[in-house]
């Protein structure tokens, strides 16, 4: 059993989070190395996620390592009924570490328990996606120069959005103030409201995007998914209320940066892209350095 796996953001304490962010800055300065020469990393994607897979694979290749794996369960032996247990045991005979995306929640924790090589969770259903959280933190640190005492507005789907939940947990070390902006149907779960209360994290909740972003350092937008709504009329209304337009940024702070885990649908209008406060594409690029840092940490190279 390996304790170097990264399954959940809560597997890392504050020091380890800062260590990863430091390492990522190093990789950004010098992303092409040969520290993984001779190492094989498996990327097992039991459900497709092109963006995350390419980011992990690029991270390996730029460090001189090699990649094996599959990008869709349909091309793996799980379609023949092979258990996750057997797949992990088989692949761990070939690879030095396993990056895994799985549609079921808890799959990564289970894999980490049975695998002799480290598991990096690249998303287990709606549960955890720690490399996304770390790249969010890196993006916040890079754009604000600090993680401490920031005002963070989080908007969109706060009920099902796993990136939001992990962000709250990871930021809890750094004295943030949150404003949660969500329609009634998608407001933050009780579980995370209690988490904030217990960790003395001040927060407020509103249902309107409009003027509520003017005092923010970070605006973290998430996708409002149609399938979450029983009433499609309500979806259409909410979709319009939660569309960020360039004109809405007029009175915001100069240091405000807009983050989004991507892919976006309609929640950020295209005219925001050219505003210097839009940071979501650079944010995606930061993912590469964070993943280089994570892979290097789990392999101790």
């Amino acid at each position, binding site marked *: 059993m390996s304790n170097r796996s990264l399954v959940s953001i809560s597997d890392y304490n504050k020091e380890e989070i800062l260590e990863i962010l430091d390492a990522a800055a190093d990789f950004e300065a010098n992303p092409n190395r040969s520290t993984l020469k001779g190492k094989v990393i498996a990327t097992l994607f039991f459900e497709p996620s092109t963006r995350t897979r390419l980011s992990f694979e690029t991270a390996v290749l730029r460090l001189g390592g090699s990649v094996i794996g599959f990008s869709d369960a349909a091309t793996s032996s799980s379609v023949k009924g092979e258990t*996750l247990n057997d797949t992990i045991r088989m692949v761990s005979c070939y690879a030095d570490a396993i990056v895994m995306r799985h549609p*079921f929640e*808890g799959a990564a*924790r*289970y894999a980490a328990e049975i695998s002799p090589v480290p598991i990096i969770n690249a998303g*287990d*259903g709606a549960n955890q996606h720690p490399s996304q959280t770390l790249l969010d933190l890196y993006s916040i640190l890079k754009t604000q120069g600090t993680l401490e005492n920031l005002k963070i507005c989080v908007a969109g789907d706060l009920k099902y959005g796993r990136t939001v939940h992990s962000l709250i947990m990871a930021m809890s070390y750094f004295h943030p103030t949150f404003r949660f902006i969500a329609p009634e149907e998608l407001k933050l779960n009780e579980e995370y409201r*209690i988490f904030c209360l217990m960790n003395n994290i001040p927060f407020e909740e509103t249902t309107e995007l409009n003027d509520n972003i003017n005092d923010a350092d970070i605006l973290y937008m998430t996708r409002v998914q149609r399938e979450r709504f029983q009433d499609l009329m309500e979806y259409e209304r909410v979709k319009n209320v939660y569309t960020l337009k360039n004109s809405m940024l007029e009175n915001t702070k100069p240091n405000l940066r807009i983050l989004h885990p991507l892919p976006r649908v309609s929640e950020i209008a295209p005219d925001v892209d050219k505003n210097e406060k839009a940071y979501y594409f650079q944010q995606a690029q930061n993912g590469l350095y964070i993943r280089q840092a994570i892979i290097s940490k789990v392999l101790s190279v």
Partner: protein
Amino acid sequence: MEKELKVAALRNGTVIDHIPADKLYQVVFMLHLDTCDNQITIGNNLESAKIGKKGIIKIAGKVFAEDETNKIALIAPNAKINIIKDYQVIEKRPLSLPDEIHEIAQCNNPNCITNHQNISTFFNVIKDETGTMLKCHYCERLIKLEEVKIK
């Protein structure tokens, strides 16, 4: 208690009393009494001043380990466990939920890996001011005690 002892006349063993009537058979299966060879007396839908209708189980010649009886706290937290020796109650055992629950509960999250592959369930018991909850070790879902499903 006096009345109970008359009925039971259990010389040595364990009495589990004040089980809510609708939970009785869950307790039977949880303790694997369905495959137990000892003499067992099961009563159900008995009148109870405290809980309306109750169930009672008497197992002769067997004293359960504490981690066995503590499982009962999961579904019948107010049940009473009495250990009997020579017709006397020698131990009134308080029920306390263990810190970890293995196997017996099922995760409520339909998308949890434990509901799709042959994996033993494992929950951590979380106690805070809002009450007691189980947290699935795998999918990390929090489950209220009253919503826990027993396998």
